[in-house]
């Protein structure tokens, strides 16, 4: 009897660490687009970068319950760090990623102490404020950043010394996709670890989390720093693959867009950011081709519908359909916390 339960407990816990068929399929398709959609590599590159950026937001929003309206601060810092580095002759992309990640992580670590106090509204305002401050610094420090003209003269070396960036965006997409995939694997591993479990417990009930002996603030600082590093890498990927950085990387709409992407895709299961990025970019592409001036109107409308109709209900229907088609998937994603959508 007791060993039966032990087996059950083990499989039930360890199952979360295993990859489901749907997940493997997702990444196989992503890899296949490299070969099947050669003329789409530029937009696919953007999707991969936004996906990684949204993934970084999911780490704090979906798993730790930290809301942010200023995540672009880290994205932008990473972009500028990588861009400035390349402009001054350090053209190796991987070195740029590393430096960008470190710079963003340091900023994340320092600002986490401001962000982690107070209510959700306070968090929204503080994160927004940090991003605005950074945007203005980048604007004023034109000797370093190029200011409003943007950072010109970024030229990247080949990836791992072998693959030159091309005008079709093929190297760029492959590079961004691989980096996003590797960072995804790390994130996926973290969220099923005891550390990841402790984050979810803090999101659910910080009072009890503390009563279980969890140093709540330290855990939140750690995940905020990690999330900032991820966002920094996403920004660096954009700077490196477009070989240009403008103030746009720190703009408010970056922070808002990434939140939008996550709401579309859903929080708290890591794929939300990636799926949201695909939907968001494709919608933007389709709608702006159809009506260039008014695409934001439609995006706005869709956002309202998604939030009001309840994303859970929509995905539940899709999931039921999927189960009907595929029989039984190995892993059913986490049920979404209701609060997260409401908080937005």
């Amino acid at each position, binding site marked *: 009897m007791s060993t039966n339960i032990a087996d059950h407990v083990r499989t039930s816990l360890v199952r979360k660490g295993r990859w489901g068929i749907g997940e493997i399929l997702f990444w196989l398709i992503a890899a296949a687009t490299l070969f099947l959609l050669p003329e789409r590599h530029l937009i696919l590159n953007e999707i991969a970068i936004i996906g990684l950026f949204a993934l970084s937001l999911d780490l704090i929003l979906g798993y730790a319950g930290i809301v942010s309206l200023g995540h672009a601060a880290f994205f932008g810092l990473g972009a500028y760090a990588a861009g400035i580095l390349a402009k001054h002759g350090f053209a190796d992309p991987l070195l740029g990623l590393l430096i960008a990640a470190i710079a963003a992580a340091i900023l994340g670590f320092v600002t986490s102490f401001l962000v982690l106090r107070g209510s959700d509204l306070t968090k929204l305002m503080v994160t927004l404020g940090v991003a605005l401050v950074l945007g203005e610094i980048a604007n004023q420090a034109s000797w370093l950043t190029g200011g409003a003209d943007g950072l010109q003269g970024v030229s990247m070396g080949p990836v791992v010394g072998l693959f030159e960036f091309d005008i079709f965006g093929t190297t760029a997409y492959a590079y961004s996709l691989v980096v996003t995939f590797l960072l995804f694997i790390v994130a996926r591993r973290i969220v099923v*670890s005891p550390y990841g479990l402790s984050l979810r417990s803090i999101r659910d*009930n910080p009072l009890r989390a*503390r009563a279980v002996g969890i140093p709540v603030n330290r855990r939140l600082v750690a995940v905020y720093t990690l999330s900032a590093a991820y966002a920094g890498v996403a920004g660096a990927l954009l700077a490196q693959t477009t070989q240009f950085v403008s103030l746009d990387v720190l703009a408010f709409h970056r922070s808002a867009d990434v939140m939008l992407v996550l709401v579309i895709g859903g929080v708290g299961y890591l794929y939300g950011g990636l799926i949201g990025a695909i939907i968001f970019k494709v919608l933007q592409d389709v709608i702006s081709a159809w009506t260039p001036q008014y695409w934001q109107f439609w995006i706005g409308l869709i956002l309202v519908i998604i939030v009001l109709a309840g994303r859970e209900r929509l995905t539940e229907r899709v999931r039921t359909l999927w189960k009907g088609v595929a029989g039984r998937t190995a892993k059913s994603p986490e049920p979404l916390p209701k609060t997260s959508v409401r908080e937005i």
Partner: protein
Amino acid sequence: MAIALETKGLVKRFGGLQATDNVSFQLQQGARHALIGPNGAGKTTFINLLTGVIKPTAGQILLEGQDITGLRPELRVQRGLARTFQINQLFPAMTPLETIGLAVSERTGGGRDWWRVTGSKRDIIDDIVDIAQRFRLTDVLDERTSNLPYGKQRLLEIAVAFACRPRVLLLDEPAAGVPEAERHELLATVAALPRDVSVLLIEHDMDLVFSFADRISVLVNGALFTEGTVEEVSTDPRVRAVYLGESVDE
């Protein structure tokens, strides 16, 4: 007998209000000790002082002889002082399995472990199974906590605290709100707590107090009013007076 938990001259003032008034209290090792008192007697403040949620104005708190007065709440838990809550404080979106797994992982230092899948260690699994069986949660391990019947949630409330392997366990009205049908199961598990855990029970329900405790302290207006065996306290006319709301001349 050794003392598990002790307060010396503990005082807490909120502005002009003396919520805890010079309380010197001792919990013996392995004790089944109840803390009772009318509403507003300062029981909750006392618990919050013990667990470190609030800091005392004056006085000392000792856990197994060591001063923990200035220690943060989570460090007290790690030293072996765990509590349950009068109103359930659970993780609604997690399963009982995850909840217990979390507490066990934290205790074994697993919370700092971010590269291993939860539950991939043998001893953690054994611990989870042991606790799930002890608190009769084996049949609901994979349910969402928010979907559990209230009685099961109450059991989980104690199970989480127990999973921290406390030396001292503070039970804050464990049976509060539990319907009659589920009550027996809960009381049985509380009675079956191992003897190496010292228990301080904060309770309104006199049946539970008399059946569980071997010593009782009475808190009135923030101060220790009296203390003694169940026999002594239950027959003390002054305690009756306090509970019936009559004035007591002291």
